[in-house]
């Protein structure tokens, strides 16, 4: 098992004819992901790496029955693309786009909740269940199939953690980037629930960063409901307050969202919080 995606997942790529969409479709196909269709308005009838392209999500759904959609659409059209996927009945939407206005996401998130659509991101590297399916930008070869779940608010820092695991021959069940924006879809708590229920997952890595209170909420959930060991690293202990550190969501404002508060909450909940990003792999090794 794994969570959210596996070899049976049927993937629709929105924005498939763009540079990014086309490149990553090729990479995902090479990994073995079952990409069944693409959508770009006005490009219906074409194909990209032998994947058929449709003008609308509705058509793609009717002809190819996808159950996951990936959004490779520029920021100003991305909210529209997410809504089209949700309205088309897709169960899981992964939005890789960075730079969507927060106000757009407030409304999108509301609509998805009404439809019961799951969203990963936006501003995420995506999700991978190693050996089964890759729906994202990550380099597949650093991953290894196994029993540790990884969830994170950042991209390359996740690769760092995964690499430390794989080098110790510790495989991963599923790795999810939840996204670096202030308003996102699935939260750490949603994923913790899934990892707890997943028989193939023995331990979880939680990589957080400054801004918001997702880590604090996760901490109180872990204390109450999670029996599996959790290892965490929080990035941004040295970040100055009031400055946005790359991600739209990574900002300490008015004393909230500090790394120290997050580290304290997680430690209190029994999570092994490592000081240095170099210690993630060894910490997991010591808890499993």
């Amino acid at each position: 098992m794994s969570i959210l995606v596996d070899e049976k997942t049927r993937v629709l790529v929105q924005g498939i004819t763009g540079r990014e969409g086309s490149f990553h479709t090729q990479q995902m196909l090479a990994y073995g992901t079952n990409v069944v269709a693409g959508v770009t308005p006005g490009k219906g009838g074409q194909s990209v790496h032998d994947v058929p392209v449709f003008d609308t999500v509705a058509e793609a759904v009717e002809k190819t029955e996808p159950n996951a959609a990936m959004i490779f659409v520029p920021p100003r059209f991305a909210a529209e693309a997410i809504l089209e996927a949700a309205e088309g009945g897709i169960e899981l939407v992964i939005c890789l786009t960075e730079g969507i206005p927060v106000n757009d996401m407030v409304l999108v998130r509301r609509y998805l909740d009404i439809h019961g659509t799951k969203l990963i991101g936006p501003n995420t590297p995506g999700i991978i269940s190693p050996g089964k399916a890759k729906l994202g930008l990550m380099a597949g070869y650093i991953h290894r199939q196994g029993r540790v779940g990884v969830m994170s608010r950042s991209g390359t820092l996740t690769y760092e953690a995964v690499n430390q695991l794989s080098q110790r021959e510790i495989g991963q069940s599923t790795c999810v980037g939840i996204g670096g924006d202030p308003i996102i879809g699935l939260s750490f708590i949603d994923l913790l629930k899934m990892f707890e229920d997943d028989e193939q997952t023995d331990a979880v890595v939680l990589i957080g960063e400054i801004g918001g209170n997702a880590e604090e909420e996760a901490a109180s959930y872990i204390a109450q409901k999670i029996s599996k060991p959790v290892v965490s690293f929080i990035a941004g202990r040295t970040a100055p307050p009031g400055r946005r550190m790359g991600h739209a969501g990574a900002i300490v404002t008015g004393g909230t969202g500090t790394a120290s508060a997050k580290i304290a909450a997680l430690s209190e909940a029994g999570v092994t919080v490592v000081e240095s990003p170099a210690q993630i792999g060894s910490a997991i090794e010591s808890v499993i």
Partner: protein
Amino acid sequence: MKIHEYQAKDLFASFSIPVPAGRVASTPREASEAAAALSGPVVVKAQIYAGGRGKAGGVKLVDSPASAQDAAERILNHPLVTHQTGPAGRVVHRVLVEEATDVKTEIYLGITIDRARRLPVIMASPAGGMEIEQIAKDSPEKIFKEWVSPEIGLRGFQSYRLAHKLGLSASETKQVAGVISNLYRLFVEKDCLLVEINPLVVDAHDRVIALDAKINFDDNGVFRHPEIEKLRDPSEENKLELQAKENNLNYIKLDGNVGCLVNGAGLAMATMDLIKLAGAAPANFLDVGGSANEEMIERGFSLLLSDPDVRAVFINIFGGILRCDILARGIVAAVKRLEVKVPVIVRLEGTNVEEGREILAQSGLEFLRARDLDEAATLIAEALRGEEK
């Protein structure tokens, strides 16, 4: 993106939020003229992006055009040091001269996004004048909130309900409710992340007026508002940061002396933390992005070296889409062109890492190569000790 108080007040006025009559001035003479054109005593307020201006001496109440000129003389073209500016302060280029208000009651009013509930939240408090963080700490029971359902927007009854909790007269409550509705309209229509009026006051004539105005716009939404983009004041931004923005690099100047170049924001923050753990301090945050090319690496590198504080450089790259061989070529090109005199520590991992390491090794240049993060931390500490000798 931030704007000045006088710009925010103009925007308030265009959304029917009452503000004091005032004018912006960039010379003492203009300040005196502005005071003469207004009636009665005036307030001269330094215009910089940072808060805490009043306590720092950047706000003066004066009773004549001559003393307005004096106050402007003392404020203009001098650095103002507040708790938000850092020790060097910010040089003041403009003052806002506005009619003094006879304040009866001070209220706090703010709108932002509640990330936990994923909805806009409006906050109001009768403890105006104090910072909201301070109110939250001292008397959280004095902060009242209304959340907005985006599909129906802020409803009139909500604005009234919130205003009603502030203990004002019927007429004042009605006026505050109007300000709340208009402020929310501004928040949504102009893609804001934060709008704040602190204080919103009731004056001696029972009129509700916004005495201060603070707006942070969503950088991701500014493309929809060219009129807002025009308000940007480049003199308020760090030169290196502006240069970085023009090159699509994400750079923030910090106080330390280890320059770092990293791909990805999370890894960049983690790298800063690692430098700190090694007993040093980062000179900057620099994220070249997940898909940087050779040229961007070179630009990023020269940017961080143009910071005179940098005593060592740490390049930490996890190649995914960005291949290590491309990155190595960019570094080698930059080091050759810029005649780098400080130690350069390089840690490469990921796609095509062997080719990348080979390019560095064959370059004839001196790099301190780290296999992993632990080794990198040790090398940084050693490099800085070498510098001190």
